Each structure stands twice: as C-alpha cells, then as structure tokens.
C-alpha cells in the first residue's frame, strides 16, 4: 500500500493521539505507585517502631499487610512498565512510519531529493531516536543492541541501515552507509542503496560485505557489556559524512543518549589519529577482520 504523505501524516497523528492518552495514564499510574510506596514505607515504619512485643499475631498480621502491600506495589509497577513500553512502542512506530515514508518517497522516484545537510540531520536524529533497549531483569542484550553483533543467520530486513563495503574505484573500497532494498536468498546477496542519493545508488553485495547497524541502543547503566570497551578497534561513521572508517574507542557513552568518543585513524595527523570525535552508538560497529583496509 502506498504510504503517501497524507496517509503517513494521518498515521502519525493517530499514534500521537494515543501517545497523548498514554501520557495521562502513565501519570495516573505513577501517582498510584507513589501512593503504594508511601503506604509500604508507612507500614514498614509502623512495624519497626511498634515495640517488638511478644504479640506474634500482631506481627504476623503486620507482615501479612506488608506482603499485600508489596504485591499491590508490584502489580502497580508492572502496570506502569506496561504503559511505558506501550508508549515507547508508539514512538517507535512513528519513527518507522517516517522512515517508511522516506523510503517510499525515494523509490517513487519523485525525487524529493534530500539535500546534503538535511541528510546529515536525518542521520543524526535517526541515531538519537534509535530505540533504547530496556531489558527485563537478568535479560541479556539481544543481537544488534549496541555492540552485540547480529546472529550468524540474521538477515537484515528491507529498510534496515547497514554498513556496506563497496568498490569506489579501481583499487579502493569503502565502507558506506546504506540501506537494504532486498535480500536475494538464491545468491546469498543483499541489494542495498547508498544512503546518499547523490551517489551511484544500487549495489548488489555478498552477505559478508554487509554489516547491519544496531537496531537498539544499549544503556551503559544496565548493559555495559553491550558496549565496545575503551581501546576497541571499531568502524565508525566519520562525522558529517556517510562513510565508515577505522577508529579506536576513546570513551564510552556515559548515558543512553550519549555518543562514543573515538579517534579516527588519520595519517594526516602527526600521531596517526584524529582529535576525539563524537559518534552515536548506531554508527559504531565491530570491525570486519580480513578486509580492514579502509583509510
């Protein structure tokens, strides 16, 4: 179904309305949670302050009451979590509607050519709004969250952003930012488009020349293991370009919204590395060994 600008706008509007409702619901739920916590605190205080007399029936009654309060608190917290996740889902939906619309507009060939500057802005915002992985307790970050690579059998879906190794001249190959058009199972190849519309567009590349970008951000506070460690050699998108170059992680993101700080390999600087540059999680990927001759 063609996603025209109007349809897309309508869909987004719809999501925004739901989101609007959710925000009130979440607020109400949060208030309820607060009450729960308050009553728990009150009950705890009461049980502590009450002289520890031998009235065991009283104690056990207090314990029962506390237990019930804990239960209620848990349900309320879960409910709030559910609401929050539902709200987040709407945000991600809006994000994907916009992306879908962009891709369709591009394929419709009506050339609402996105200017260079707009493209850069779009890339930045796409990185900032990349869904954040909020795992449940004990859950490990899934594939394509932060630094976690794709599973061997993973096939990127159409529209997914990837780094693609393309030949740019006789003897030079570059890792460029591209998006998947289709997967050709028979050949085991991807069809990808250069994200920069001004370049030669379509490439058909074998799977090993295509590295999917993270689909989720990892939160350093909960999933530090899903981030590249300091000193790791990575491929990172050079700021304000659409090409990946080898770099060394200099500093990890401090928060989920923070970018990495990396040092690009650059022979034009005396020490062989550029000054620190900030690159978002979405654009920092593991180096493909063997073919790492990018300059």
């Amino acid at each position: 179904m063609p996603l025209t600008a109007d349809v897309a706008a309508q869909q987004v509007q719809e999501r925004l309305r739901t989101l609007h409702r959710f925000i009130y619901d979440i607020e109400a739920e949060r208030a309820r949670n607060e009450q729960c916590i308050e009553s728990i605190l009150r009950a705890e205080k009461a049980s502590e302050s009450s002289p520890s007399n031998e009235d065991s029936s009283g104690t056990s009654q207090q314990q029962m009451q506390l237990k019930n309060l804990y239960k209620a608190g848990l349900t309320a917290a879960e409910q709030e979590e559910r609401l929050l996740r539902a709200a987040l889902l709407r945000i991600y939906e809006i994000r994907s509607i916009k992306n879908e619309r962009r891709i369709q507009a591009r394929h419709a060939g009506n050339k609402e050519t996105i200017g260079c500057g707009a493209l850069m802005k779009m890339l930045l915002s796409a990185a900032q709004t990349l869904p954040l992985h909020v795992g449940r307790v004990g859950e490990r970050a899934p594939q394509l969250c932060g630094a976690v690579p794709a599973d061997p059998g993973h096939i990127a879906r159409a529209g997914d952003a990837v780094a693609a190794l393309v030949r740019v001249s006789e003897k030079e190959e570059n890792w460029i930012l591209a998006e998947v058009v289709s997967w050709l199972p028979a050949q085991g190849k991807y069809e990808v488009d250069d994200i920069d519309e001004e370049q030669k567009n379509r490439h058909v590349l074998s799977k090993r020349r295509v590295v999917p970008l993270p689909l989720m951000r990892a939160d350093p506070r909960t999933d530090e293991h899903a981030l590249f460690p300091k000193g790791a050699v990575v491929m990172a998108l050079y700021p304000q370009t659409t090409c990946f170059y080898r770099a060394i992680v200099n500093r990890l993101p401090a928060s989920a919204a923070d970018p990495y700080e990396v040092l690009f390999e650059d022979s034009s600087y005396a020490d062989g590395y550029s000054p620190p540059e900030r690159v978002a999680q979405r654009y920092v990927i593991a180096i493909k060994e063997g073919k790492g001759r990018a300059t």
Partner: protein
Amino acid sequence: MSTEEIHDISMPITEADSSQTHGHDASLTATADDASSSSAATPQSTEGQASRQSNLQRIQQRKQQVYNWPHNKKLLKLAIYSACQTPECTCNGWKTPVPQQALKANQRADNQPLASFNDPCRNCNHVLEKHVTQLQGLPVAEVNRLLGAVVDVENIFMCMHREDDQDTKRVYYYLFKILRKCILTRSHPRIEGPLGQPPFERPSIAKAITNFVLYKFNTLSQREWQTMYDLAKMFLHCFNHWNFETPSVRKLQVSNPEDISAYQINYTRWLVFCHVPAFCDSLPHYETSLVFGRTLLRAVFKSVCKQLMDKCHLERDRMPPEKRVLVLTHFPRFLALLEEEIFSADSPIWDPEFKQNPPNHLQNILDNKTPIRRGEFERVTASGDSKDGFTTVSLSSGTINPIKQEGVKRGAESRSGCQPMSAAKRRRIGSDTGDDVCERTVADIVATITDPNYMCGPDALFQMQAPRDEAAKLEEQRKLIEFHVIGNSLTGAVNKQTMLWLIGLHNVFSHQLPEMTKEYISQLVFDPKHKTLALIKEGRPIGGICFRTFLSQGFSEIVFCAVTSNEQVKGYGTHLMNHLKDYHIRNNILHFLTFADEYAIGYFKKQGFSKDIKLPRAMYQGYIKDYEGATLMHCELNPRIVYTQFTSVVRRQKEIVKKLIDMRQKEVRKIHPGLTCFKEGVRSIPVECVPGVRETGWRPAAGARAHHDHDADADVATLRNVLHAVKNHAAAWPFLKPVDKADVPDYYDHIKYPMDLRTMGERLKSRYYVSKRLFIADMTRIFTNCRLYNSPDTDYYRCANTLEKYFHTKMKEAGLWDK
C-alpha cells in the same frame, strides 16, 4: 514709491506684453486700501525667515481683502489686465486716462475708486466697460481666481523690480508674462517649454531620503529609528524651504561649466515651480524635495549641510536640551551617512525600485498608530533674524499645503488630523505600483505566518527542505558560533586572540586543502594584505574564507575557503560566504573572483559564482593569483540584497504569495469537472481553455496572445457544422453511436478510450470543445480506435479512412485546419 503709483484701479500698466522694459511709469502695485501691502510681496530672502513668514501671511490677507471687495470694484481692477472687447481693438488693458494728483487725494479720502465704467482708456479710448464685458457673467470664484492672479502679478513685478541678479530677474519677467497672459485669456497658467515638467528626476529627493532611513537604520530600535526619521523629516523640511544661491554666485565656487549649466537649469526650475509658486499660489506649486532628484541634491548638499549646521550651532542656546542632543550629536552623523549615500556611485537609495520592508515598529509609525510629535522639531529652529537666506523649519500651517509635502506629510497629517495617513499612503501605493497588494493585507499575512501556531500542512512532518544556511543562522543567533574578519599586521599590534585564531585557521586550511603546502598557506594567511573571515565555534576557528581586496580594482579575490571536515554539511560554508558578501557590500566592493579547484566548483556555484567572468580582464589580470588547473569563477554582488537574510526573505515572500493565492481562491471558489482530454490522448491544451482559469483573473502573457487568438475561432457554430456534415456522410454509419458491448463483447477490452459521433454531439452541446484541438482529438480518436480494432480489409477500416479524409476537408473549408 511715488504717490502716483499708489493707485488702485486707476493705476495702469503701461507696457504691452511684448514691451521689454519694466519699471517705467507705472508699476503694479497694491492698492490704496491697504497701503502696507504695497511693500509686501517681497518674499525674496533679504529679510530672512521671520519676514518670509509674515510676507506669506500678508499676501494671503491681501488676497482675502480683494476677494471681499464689491463686485464692481473687482471688475474695475480686472479691467487693467483685460483686453478691450471692441471689435478690431487690440488694447490689452485699460489705462487710466490722466493720472491726477487731485484725484488721488480724493480717492484716499473716501476710499472709492475714481475710475468708473464710463472712463475712456488712455490706450484705446474705448470706455472701461468695454474691457470688462467678458467678465460680467463669470462666477464669483472665477473672478476671485483672476484677482488672485492679479495680486500675484503685482507681487512678481515687485520682485522683478528689486532683483539684482539678471538670471533671476529674467525668470520673474517670464512668470510675470505668463500670469498676465492667463488673466487676459482667463485661462490657467501653464508653464511649458525647455524647462520640462516636474518631476525632473526619479526617484525624488524625498523618496531617496525615506529609502535612506529604511536602508541604513532598519536595524535600530524603535526609539533610535524615530530619531533618524525625525532628522530625515527635518532635513527634507529645510530643503523644501531652502533658498538656492543664484547661478552667478555659484560660478564663483564651481568651475566645471557643465555643472554650472546643469545648476542653472535646476535653479530656474526651482524658481518657476517651487519658489515663486510658494507665494504666488495661482502658479502650480511643487515641493523641491519631491520634484528634484540626485543631481540637484549632489550639487547643493555640501553647502546646505554646512549652513544647516552653522545655523544649528548658532541657535543651540535657544533649544531645549533634548533637541540640542538631537541636532548637535545625531544630525552631523546623519548628514555624514547621508552624504556617503548621495555621492556613492550605486547606493540603493536611488534605486527607483527600492523596497525594503520596514521593521515592525516602523510599520506602526507609517500606519500612523503612534502619535508623532512633529511640533518638536519646529522648536529647534526658532528662527532669528538671519540674513543668510537660509530657510529654517518654521513651517506655518496656513501657507503650505500639507498634502504636497511628502517628506513630512505623515507628521503633518497626524497633527492636523486632516486625513488618516494610512488611507493616503495606500492610495499612493495603489497608483504607483498598479496591482500591488495593499500593505495591510501583507502585514496580516506576515502576522499569520510568523505565528508559532501556524501550521504549514501535513507534509511539515517530513519537511526536510530547510534552507542550506538555516541551521548555521540559528546557531549564530544562539551565539554558538561567531564570525570575525581578522588579519595580520606588520605595522600595528596584533592582539593575541587574533594571532591564535589565525594559527587555527592556518591549521584548518592546511588540513582541508592538502594540495597547498603549509608554507604557502602561512605566506597568505599571515600576509597583512590578506584578511580572513573566521568562523569561530567554542572559541576556536572551525572554518574561514581568506581573501584579498583590491580596492582600486573593485574586487576581492577569494584565496582559501574551508570548513573543518567534521563540521561540514551544516550550512557553515554558505553562511560564511553570505557574511563575506554582506561585509563586502558594506565596503562597497561588489565583485568576487576566485580560482576554484575541481572540488570547489560545486560549492562556488551554489554560492552564486559563475565561470562566466563579467569583469573585464584588465580589471584583474596581474592582480589575482593565477592557479594552474583551476577554474576562474566570478560572483557579482547585488547591494540591495542582505545575503545573510536572503533565504528567509525569499521564503517569506513565497509564503506570502501562497497565502495571497489562498485568499484569492476563497474569493473565487468553484469546482469544475476535471479535464478528460489528456486521458484521451491530447498532449496539451492552451491554459485559457482550462475551465475556470479565466474567472480567476488569469490573463495570457503578451507573447502568448497570438497563439490564443488563433485558437479562439473554434466557435461552437462552426464545429457544429463540421460535425453535422461528418454525421451525414455515407461512411459515417459505423461511428454514429457508441459500440454496443452486446454486439462486440471484447471491444472494450481493446479500446480504452472509445469515442463516437453522438458523444461528440453531446460534448459540443455541453461546451466541452473550448478549442478546436479538443474537437480534432476526439474525432481522430474515432478513426484510430476503428483502425486499431479492425483489420485493414474490413469495411469499418475503409469507412474510417474515407470519413477521416472528409473530416479534414471539412475542417479546411471551415478554416480550422492549419497543417
């Protein structure tokens, strides 16, 4: 003045119009009724400003007095200037028979004219009555007009008499003759001849000065702007009442004969159209600042300024303190800036098309929402008894018609409350620019689109078409980035900050331009003749344009231009270049040249550079550094554009036009059925054939008209005749009505756009065929459908061929076939 001259109607003019001499036995005088007025009417400046004022008043009083005379007395007066109506008589004015002392005394005593309708004329001997018969039936207003002219004639005569300057004297005599003639023929004075008609130059001085205020002070706050506006009004007012020095005086100062003859012409024009009419209101009066332009202002500006300032200094003790500040601090600066624009070769203020949106606060002033305290600057010039012939700002409400004074019009009107300014202004705009939209509408639209709640439609969600430099402009507004023009110096001290920035820029350039050696970059960046526009972010340069200005050649060479790599594609490059352009316009350099390498050509093209060099080679050869393998590119700047605001201005204009279209659409809303002709294979139809287009007021462009007329002859009657003939042809039978699906089940699978003669008849009736092209297309469709579906050996196919030929013949007969 001899007593003889102090006559009323008995005082004749002796000379005929043709006679050369003036000032003989009788001069034109005022009347005995009012002896004082005989010495009036000398507005020429020797008595200075105060007396000028009273002169004007006295003239008005005198006229009023004359208007109140009894009718007969008026006629007796006019007889002196009126031709004798006796057939064959050529006498041009009644003359008193014998000037007699006795009579005079008498007259004085009883205040009665001595002459009567029966007195014979000394000149032609016909009785006085004969001189006035033609005036008898005239309405009072007309008689009064003629009497007013008589007073003016007498005043001009006085002036002429007193004038020493020969040039000026001649002009008075010329005006004297014109006025006399117009009384004689009872016509209105018309000044024709080599002097030309006002306005003599466009734009007028008043317009240019208004432009100047808009152009120079647009960015000032309201209060400061108001000050400048008041100063401009003050200047214009002075200028309108300025007494220009005579050409003979001017000759002493200026040596260029061309200048002098040009001045002489303008001086004469000024006397005839501005100066004399100011006190002789039977002549058409024009304000100096409205009818003269740059030439005159340039010629007199310096001396005007000097005298103005001298005057201001003389009077400063009498001014209230705030006025003193205005006049002594702001006025000199104002005049200096104005002088720059007046003598600059291509100042935009002289552009007849000059348009600059006034700032909001100014809009209020122009709309007259805020009261303007115009009275104040009049106090500035509480004029003394100056002898310099210099006119100050002591405007009196009685004598000057405020409507004529554009420069001070706004204030004048608001004060006297005679006419709401906005109305007058709008009217003027309407007449000047024809179809232009009224400013109120535009202001409303601007208010709408600047409203933060204004939505620009559903696609705003996906809008990515922001101007290239918008992000950079935003950052500049938030003070995240700054722009500075810096350079090294070998003679003066260079501060540390500048040095550090230059070093930073050197790094940026050498990093971004690997082709250039570091030494070469140092050589230019640190060269005192080169300057660099630096883009500073977080205290450190992240980009810049190094340039060298060749003042004598009127261009700047752009030497290096780079933005550090991780800050590229953020619009900095564009914003840098726009700043550089604005900087150069301020410094009156309007050309950029650069040698662009292969990667830079694209950038420079986006910035308005072209490989087409419009500067003559001699201008730059030997000046600009030559680079091998690079392309020379040129960019000419338009001083009327503020480049850093260009995109937002254009966008806003677009938005306004869009709104105007919306508004128009609401006015003429009608839904027409869509066009189907394109589906049916017509490639194009004339725009005016689209139903409804004409109703919106669309007119074909002049060039397109021929084409349109050509098509307009497709009138219904002619087409009906052709269709009728085709229908009645023997080969038409297969095409008379739509193909029936029951008869030919698969017909519509093959034929997507069926057509038949009956359908065409219906379309003709419903006026679908607004052009013959549509008609031909439908007809041709019938034949091509037929040949498509049927094979050539069928009757159908043959019918199609036959009928088509017949159709062509018929169309040619009707003159509708042009192939």
